């Protein structure tokens, strides 16, 4: 707690009227994190409290800074996919795609159609597994334990699929420049189809259990409203921005990296911009992703999974920025190449970093319990903030 150092002389004329002076209750500085269950890792939030109301919040990050931008300068392109896997560890596969895409664009290589489709399927699967965790976790942060377990339980199915296709549950490292490491295993497509139907049921379950709950609505509606204009100028992206009514999805509006335009799908926006809207949007997008995967499985072309790629990967001189719609928002890589086997400079633009940078503005004047709700609804991954 802070002690207010006030000159006693200031108070002496008031000594007689002491009773009329409102007692000065000092502000309390509370450290939320770096070890706190609501911070998904090591985010630290220094909040100045008046009672339970937040006066000022200052996020302190960097407890997990691994210096990836420096490390990329000392590695070759195939080695870097291992690094980018670990940026947003919940949707590792989706991290690889824009990086590999950038390298491919610089090298003017086009991956085979089958590889692109499988990339799309696995990216959407990463989105489902990330969002399922969110759908449960958000319930947990609002105080209900059961949804969290449902989230983990259902995510397991998608993780099993990712594991059986790529060999890694969390860090697939499955993309190669020009294609993929290997083809899907036998029977995977049928299994995937079953699982996606299960995911659709699971979404209904979350809709009933969490979103339909009046207490959940009372806790999240009108809390943590991000105005669309301000959100965009902070660089907030992805579902967080769509929940504020901005219909902007890089899968549709970005440079085409994956064959999203070959299937029928929708984007979802919500006009409210509050915590509830973010939950609503993510729930709809989970469902939509499952539908997209079902369509992609129908249209999955046959053919090779690797294009013709030189044995030693040397990327010609040039620079490019390639971004993609990651589960958490816009993820992009600005690669500057000088014609070597590794990049000269890689700027990694992560979604959570910008999403979280709005927190000082967003947390002003709300209660401590709502801080947790807002943190949960923004949905960040610490590795994605700290890189």
């Amino acid at each position, binding site marked *: 707690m802070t002690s207010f150092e006030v000159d006693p002389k200031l108070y002496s004329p008031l000594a007689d009227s002491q009773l009329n002076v409102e007692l000065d209750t000092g502000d309390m500085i509370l450290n939320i994190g770096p070890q706190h269950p609501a911070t998904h890792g090591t985010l630290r939030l220094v909040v100045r409290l008046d009672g339970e109301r937040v006066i000022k919040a200052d996020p302190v*990050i*960097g407890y997990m*800074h691994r*210096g990836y931008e420096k490390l990329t*300068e*000392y*590695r*070759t392109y195939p*080695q870097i996919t291992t690094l980018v896997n670990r940026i947003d560890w919940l949707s590792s596969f989706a991290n690889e795609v824009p990086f590999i895409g950038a390298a491919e664009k610089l090298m*003017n290589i086009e991956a085979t159609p089958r590889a692109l489709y499988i990339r799309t399927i696995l990216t959407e699967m990463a989105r489902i597994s990330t969002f399922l965790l969110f759908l449960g976790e958000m319930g947990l942060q609002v105080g209900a334990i059961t949804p969290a377990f449902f989230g983990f339980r259902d995510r397991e199915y998608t993780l099993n699929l990712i594991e059986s296709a790529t060999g890694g549950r969390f860090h697939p490292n499955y993309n190669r420049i020009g294609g993929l490491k290997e083809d899907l295993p036998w029977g995977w497509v049928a299994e995937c189809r079953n699982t996606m139907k299960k995911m659709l049921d699971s979404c209904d379950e979350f809709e009933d259990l969490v979103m339909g709950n009046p207490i959940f609505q009372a806790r999240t509606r009108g809390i943590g409203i991000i105005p*669309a*204009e301000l959100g*965009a*100028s*902070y*660089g*907030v992206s992805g579902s967080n*921005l769509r929940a504020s009514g901005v*219909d*902007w*999805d890089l899968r*549709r*509006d*970005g*440079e085409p990296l994956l064959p*999203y*335009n070959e299937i029928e*799908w*929708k*984007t*979802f*926006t*919500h*006009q*409210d911009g509050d915590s509830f809207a973010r939950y*609503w949007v993510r729930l*709809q997008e989970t469902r939509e992703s499952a539908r997209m995967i079902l369509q992609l499985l129908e249209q999955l072309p046959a053919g090779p999974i690797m294009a013709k790629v030189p044995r030693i990967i040397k990327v010609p*001189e*040039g*620079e*490019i*920025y*390639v971004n993609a719609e990651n589960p958490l928002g*816009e993820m*992009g890589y*600005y690669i500057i190449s*000088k014609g*070597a*086997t*590794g*990049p*000269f*400079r890689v*700027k990694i*633009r992560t979604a959570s*970093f*910008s999403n979280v*940078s*709005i927190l000082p*503005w967003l947390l002003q004047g709300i209660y401590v319990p709502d801080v947790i709700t807002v943190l949960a609804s923004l949905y960040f991954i610490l590795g994605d903030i700290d890189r």
Partner: protein
Amino acid sequence: MADDEVTSPDVDDAGETATVATIEVPEVSAPEAAESQVPAMTDANAALLARVTAELGEAILESGQAGVDLIIRVTPESWARAAEVCRHKLGFDYLCFISGIDWLPTPSVGGEDAESDTSAPVQPKTMTFGVAGSEGRFQVFARVSSTRVARVGLTLKVDIKESKPVVGSWCGTYPGADWHERECWEMYGFVFDGHPSLRHLYLPHEFEGFPLRKDFPLLAREVKPWPGLVNVEGMPGEPDEEEAST
């Protein structure tokens, strides 16, 4: 903007909308990187450049294109003004990132003799600059984009003097620039004039040096080059690596 056809979301009573993904964007011709190093500028970017030039005029030193992005280099004095123009005049409401570049050649890893054996990339020894050029070693670059128009991006670059690395801050225009500039300051040592508080973002506050500058050694690699000079023996039955490559 070159294209303002944005499908307005159908608002139903609940305030929840779902729009069909309609892609109404001008066709962008594929960059012809294979034919020449400098790809021809697309029509959309040429139109955008014309609009930027109309606003900034003399402040634009050079321009180019990379991927779909238009890249312009502006004078250090007009850096802050460029942000205002981008956000308020050109409709770039979305801040993507701000970061820095150090164009100094990457020091070779693990000593001279390591070049042949490690798989660490060997970068050219001469200082060359990327698209839109540079005057010296340091540059700050930022990318802005629009949430209303598809497939458009503008990357701005500005030269930073090595002797006096100061440039205007974007915080007043894009509030999200706060953290990006703090990161850039701690990683490169560029001072953003007008930033409310340039504190360390990632690193401990007593940290010295600017890690992303090329002359800041990555000590782990100095001590032990990785994957190192270790000779990995082939699996029994497999041909030697030397033989396989020949």
